[in-house]
């Protein structure tokens, strides 16, 4: 192994790649512009949908209640909803989104209430439909008020004060600093994106430097040089790794810059983000800290980048080896394309709520990385798992690199016809 040779090959490949539009797009443009833009658009659309749903005055159909005119009157006078008579096809109307909610008031509701019974009001809605969910929220708030009034009336009749039914108060107070909350909220997403970009960043340079060179006839030219094969592989491999790591770094810098410059606008604006998070059901309003929005611990980001390096080596070596086998870039693309699914699948499992780092999940490649990064971004540093996952990633990476060197020395691969 001769570092002069490796550096010569690497610098040539770097210069060559910087002049290649397709490599620049996959390594710089997509991570820098497209990813943050995607989030911006996604965030804006989500925030706008949530805002629209909030502004929507839900149409509420009442089923029954004819024998409880006072309840009906209060429903009709309630603000924030439009009450209509229920037609026979109210279920279809909810499904067709012409009706948000239907409320079934049981027979003799008022009379049974007076008699001390506990009648149940049913609220029919369309689960997952944002405006219908908003209608439920409005109706539930109204019914809660109606129930409180009933309780207050009963307490007054018994000569008891209002506080008799509410002897004490309680409220939540968040003690987690914003970066911990940020880690919990976005901790799954950041490693997922980093891992995905590491792979896609390695893909194009790997194809160009191997199958592309074979296809263009420059591989044979290069093989005529007296440089040992291992030096050629390492020089080229370092370029693929540069592509992989660059994609990750550009994405992080661009995302951080977007947040710093545009503030929370990246994810749809401050209030929008908050409402989007609340509406997504990921977190209830009291859990969101007052004041500044949740942030991600910078130390966690550094930790994630360090953990991702051996995986970037693994991806670079794998993409290099697989592409090397192909005769053309098109063929290499058909091999590497499906590999994205193999990368996404275990990584995306880490984003799922409730998925924790355990002795079992720590053994699953990529999922373990996704989970340990999620923890690091939340400020949890489980050193035994970190060491184990980093070590195993290094072993996989070393094996993949060894395989790449072996493949480069095989005539049937290099001169495959």
């Amino acid at each position, binding site marked *: 192994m001769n570092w002069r*040779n490796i550096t*010569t*090959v690497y610098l*040539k490949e770097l*210069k*060559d790649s910087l*002049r*290649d539009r397709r490599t620049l797009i996959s390594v710089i443009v997509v991570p820098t512009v497209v990813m943050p833009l995607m989030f911006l658009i996604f965030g804006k659309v989500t925030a706008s949908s949530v805002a629209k749903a909030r502004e929507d005055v839900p149409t509420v159909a009442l089923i029954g209640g004819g024998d409880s005119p006072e309840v009906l009157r209060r429903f009709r006078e309630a603000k924030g909803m439009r009450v209509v008579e229920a037609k026979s096809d109210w279920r279809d109307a909810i499904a067709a989104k012409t009706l948000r909610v239907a409320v079934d008031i049981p027979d003799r509701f008022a009379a049974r209430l007076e008699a001390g019974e506990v009648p149940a009001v049913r609220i029919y809605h369309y689960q997952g439909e944002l405006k219908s969910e908003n209608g439920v929220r409005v109706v539930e708030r109204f019914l809660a008020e109606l129930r409180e009034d009933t309780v207050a009336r009963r307490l007054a009749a018994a000569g008891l004060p209002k506080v008799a039914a509410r002897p004490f108060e309680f409220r939540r107070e968040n003690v987690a600093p914003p970066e911990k909350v940020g880690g919990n909220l976005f901790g799954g997403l950041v490693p997922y994106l980093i891992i995905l970009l590491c792979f896609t960043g390695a893909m194009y340079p790997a194809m160009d430097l191997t199958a592309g060179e074979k296809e*263009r*006839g*420059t591989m*044979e*030219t*290069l*093989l*005529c*040089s*007296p*440089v*040992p094969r291992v030096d050629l592989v390492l020089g080229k491999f370092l370029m693929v790794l540069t592509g992989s790591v660059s994609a990750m770094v550009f994405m992080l810098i661009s995302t951080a810059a977007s947040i710093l410059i545009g503030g929370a606008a990246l994810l749809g604006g401050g209030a929008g983000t908050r409402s989007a998070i609340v509406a997504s059901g990921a977190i209830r309003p009291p859990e969101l800290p007052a004041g500044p929005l949740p942030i991600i611990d910078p130390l966690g980001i550094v930790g994630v980048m360090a953990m991702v390096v051996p995986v970037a080596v693994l991806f670079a070596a794998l993409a290099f080896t697989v592409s090397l086998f192909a005769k053309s870039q098109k063929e290499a693309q058909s091999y590497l394309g499906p590999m994205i699914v193999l990368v996404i699948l275990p990584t995306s499992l880490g984003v799922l709520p409730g998925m924790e780092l355990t002795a079992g999940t720590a053994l699953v490649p990529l999922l373990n990385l996704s989970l340990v990064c999620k923890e690091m971004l939340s400020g949890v540093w489980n050193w035994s798992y970190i060491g184990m996952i980093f070590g195993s990633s290094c072993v996989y990476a070393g094996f993949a690199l060894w395989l790449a060197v072996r493949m480069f020395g095989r*005539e049937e691969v290099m*001169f495959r016809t």
Partner: protein
Amino acid sequence: MIEARQLTKTFRDKKRGEIHGALDVSFRVEPGTIYGLLGANGAGKTTTLRMLATLLRPTRGTAVVAGHDVAAEPDRVRARVGFLAASTALYARLTAREMIGYFGRLNGMTDAAIRARTGELAERLGMGEFLDRRCDQLSTGMKQKTSIARTIVHDPPVMIFDEPTLGLDVMTARTVVGFVRECRAAGKTVIYSTHVMSEVEKLCDVIGVIHGGRLLAEGSLSELRARHGLTDLEDIFVRLVEGAGGAAK
């Protein structure tokens, strides 16, 4: 000097079984001479030359190139060989100067030596006007000159040409042929493979006819004519190939 000793290369094909790309090929090329390897497409020329350039490992036999064994010292052999083939292309996104410089560095030359050598080659090959132009913007002739410069940047004592005029126009082909002659005049050991009879007649001091991976005959043009009682090289070639049980393509 090149000395091939029973060079054999066997490929394994799932459908066709074992195929001999070259079988017991032996010949010797002295410095200052051009050895022409004449054969039809698929005769075994490229396989033989790739073994000499250490791109392929011989299955059996060996060759000594400029004093180094192709199997035992492939890196040393490559450092002493200039290999130019129709299939050895240029990096499209590099300039001609960068291309020459890259191969100079790969051959262990210093930056100062590369600068001096590039200037010398540019003048000799008339590359001055396009030296700093990207290879994908060069004409075929310019590309071929750049390839030649890339091949000889380290001034190797052995030159291997594998159908270097394939697909070239007359003027560009003449440039290549002229360069091959210059190599001989400079005392280099030259091996030149082609299926173009006229090139062999014009260039080669010794001709080896190869077919089906085997070297069928060897000698100077006059020796081959005398041996077969024919004057036309094409007729001699066809007789040899038909005698070996195959039709020339």
